[in-house]
């Protein structure tokens, strides 16, 4: 399987100059639009991609990061929608781009209104408690939540964030409930757990890594289909006895609507080549992301499924959906 995909990559690599000759090729600096300000998750990934593209000489032109913050992703999505037919603009989307239009009537641009290019990464998560917490397994935590309904607390992001989605799914499948306390910044969420003000949190594995190594945090389960390389001892949700769907945190690339088909082919191919480079693999490994490459057609399908499932989960969580 693995050798087959690398063979495909090799073939793609060999054919690349050929397809360049007849198809589309960017001629001026390409804008990569992100929805966060400098320093946000998407911004950092976009800049890392720009550096890799330069280092591996993957494009004849430069890739430049454009920050369009605001509207919880809606401003960046609308910016791309306005650039209809623009051949030198791409956008780096995340789950927020998919969720905001579901809950905010003001955010009118969905991924369906843009041109899907490629999915790049899936971000797994782990469920963590403070090191001196009485809960040694997720089952123990759920048991405690059953005994004291609504008493235990989880820190996380907004109520549409993956943190809350994982909680909703677990609550529904076990018939328990605990409180979800929203904090705007990741730092505050971790501080709330380390300060002993909440009992549990869903956290990115790389963020948790150093706190575990320092003996401040303990991981109960991983929100992922397979065990992560750096957490070989920790059960996945399913292995821990909780058969709930694993909701991925996704990042990928879209383009403005109305661009020619050969552009889509060029870009999906370009991003596949990017995800096969040494620098990309190292980046993925360092950040403990999963390689989530999908081409344009698969991404469009993924989007539909993801949106339907998300709508259900949000409805269950009592969140008003507008689309």
């Amino acid at each position: 399987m693995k050798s087959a995909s690398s063979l495909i990559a090799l073939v793609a690599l060999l054919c690349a100059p050929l397809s360049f000759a007849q198809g589309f090729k960017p001629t001026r600096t390409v804008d990569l639009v992100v929805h966060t300000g400098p320093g946000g998750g998407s911004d950092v990934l976009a800049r890392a991609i720009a550096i890799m593209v330069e280092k591996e000489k993957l494009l004849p032109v430069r890739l430049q990061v454009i920050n369009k913050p605001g509207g919880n992703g809606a401003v960046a999505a609308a910016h791309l929608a306005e650039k209809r037919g623009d051949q030198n603009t791409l956008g780096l989307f995340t789950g927020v781009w998919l969720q905001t239009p579901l809950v905010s009537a003001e955010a009118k641009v969905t991924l369906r209104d843009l041109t899907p290019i490629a999915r790049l990464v899936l971000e797994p998560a782990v469920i963590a408690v403070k090191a001196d917490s009485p809960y040694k397994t997720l089952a123990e935590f759920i048991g405690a939540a059953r005994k004291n309904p609504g008493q235990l607390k989880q820190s996380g992001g907004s109520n549409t964030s993956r943190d809350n989605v994982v909680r909703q799914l677990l609550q529904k499948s076990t018939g328990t409930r605990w409180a979800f306390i929203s904090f705007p910044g990741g730092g505050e969420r971790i501080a709330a757990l380390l300060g002993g003000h909440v009992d549990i949190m869903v956290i990115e594995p790389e963020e948790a890594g150093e706190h575990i190594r320092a003996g401040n945090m303990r991981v109960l389960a991983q929100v992922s289909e397979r065990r992560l390389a750096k957490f070989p001892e920790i059960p996945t949700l399913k292995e821990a006895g909780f058969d709930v769907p694993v909701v991925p945190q996704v990042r990928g690339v879209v383009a403005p609507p109305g661009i020619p088909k050969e552009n889509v082919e060029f870009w999906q191919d370009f991003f596949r080549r990017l995800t096969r480079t040494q620098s990309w693999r190292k980046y993925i490994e360092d950040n403990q992301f999963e390689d989530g490459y999908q081409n344009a057609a698969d991404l469009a399908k993924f989007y539909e499924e993801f949106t339907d499932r998300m709508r259900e989960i949000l409805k269950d969580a009592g969140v008003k959906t507008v689309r």
Partner: protein
Amino acid sequence: MEILAGLFHGFAVALEPANLFWCFVGVLLGTVVGILPGLGPPATIAMLLPLTFNMNPAGAIIMLAGIYYGAKYGGSTTSILMNVPGESASVVTCLDGYQMAKKGRAGPALGIAAIASFVAGTVGVLGLMLVAPPIAKFALSFSSPEYFALMSLGLALVVLLAGRSIVKALLAALVGLWIASVGTDLFSSTSRFTFGQMELLSGIDFVVVAIGVFALAEVMVNMEAREETQLLPVPKGLKNLLPTMQDLKDCRFAFLNGSVIGFLVGALPGGGSTIASFLSYGLEKAVSPRREQFGTGVIEGVAAPEGANNSETGGALVPLLTLGIPGSGTTAILLAALVLWGFKPGPLFIPEHPALFWGLVASMYIGNVMLLILNLPLVPLFAQVLRMPVYVLYPLILGVSMVGVYSVSGSLFDLLLLLVFGLLGYLMRKLDYPSAPLILGLALGAGMERALRQSLMMSEGKLSILVARPISAVMLSFAVLVLLIPMFGKLNAWRLRALEQD
């Protein structure tokens, strides 16, 4: 002893010619970025990230940190000269800084801003060096009820920012709180007061409102009264442009106040330099014997907030370097930089990379000295800006305001908002409503609402959580005391009158 050895090692790193050079580049860039409103340190650091990839990590972190604290020095310049707050932390500086400039004391205002920044910036580094681990522990003990109490204390300061009428000040603060509630609610994902505008989904940027009600309103009011406008007085001679001994004496407490408040609030992951600067200004005013002159151009009204926002840098680096927890946009991107270079910021960062940590600490001592030397000679230069005739100065202020707002988000919508808030500020001036309470309400509103709702979710709806925790209870009592200050004043006046009648 361990600290001395570490510091010795750190200076060995920081004094390497290459690192010294990067330190200088960083503080120079920081100063420039700070002076330009809008373009802040996070954007600058993000743009420079690709360049740091081939650098030695020590040199790179020294340079990026230099941009961070260097920008805090420059931030006050446009506040003082043009009433245009360059960044959220220098909004408070407008209150007395611009009034000083109007009285011909722009030089001393700029000078004291640099000196206070140096003093408090250095104290902040001292704090980072000496008490980082215990302070980080203290910061973790802070939770939502404590944040709510801290912000209540901040909001109570509204009575100190009031002009003649307390009622008008409270109304203005309410409008500020309302503006803070615009956007998507974090807890329920509901849109509030967005009027169908997707740009409003993420709320209204603090800097847009501040520049509108301060700078734009100021220009409009002055244009209207054009017959009376005259050039702002700028005294000649370097000596008249720098703070006097008396000025420095007046600021003794402000240096201490700014240093301590800035460092402590900075170390809280939910704190930030805006809150730090407001709190230190409020404290300065509350204890000052010439309280009633604040807002008319007293020098300690510039020194305290400018000091606080510099000391905050040292504080903000505490949770970042000891726990790997960023508390603000700038520390978040510094964290991202460390990760990109292959480090793992977290509780083990300092013990495992002592050379990097101590090199950074030592470079910050050096950088602060560089900044003082760099900024003081700029004072006479910048003071000349005010020699410009109004038909040049006002368009310049307008231009600087617009560029500043546009460069924060790159959106025309924000320019429209700027105009709206300019008009609001103008109306408030005409109707004699103070604008500082509005800004205070806006700065604290969102965080205060969040902290209250988080607290109530933690306690299952019991308000007692706010007073049951000691730190929170103490701060809330202080808030009540602050609210009573005007009443003390009234009581005192009444007592004096009674004495006279006797």
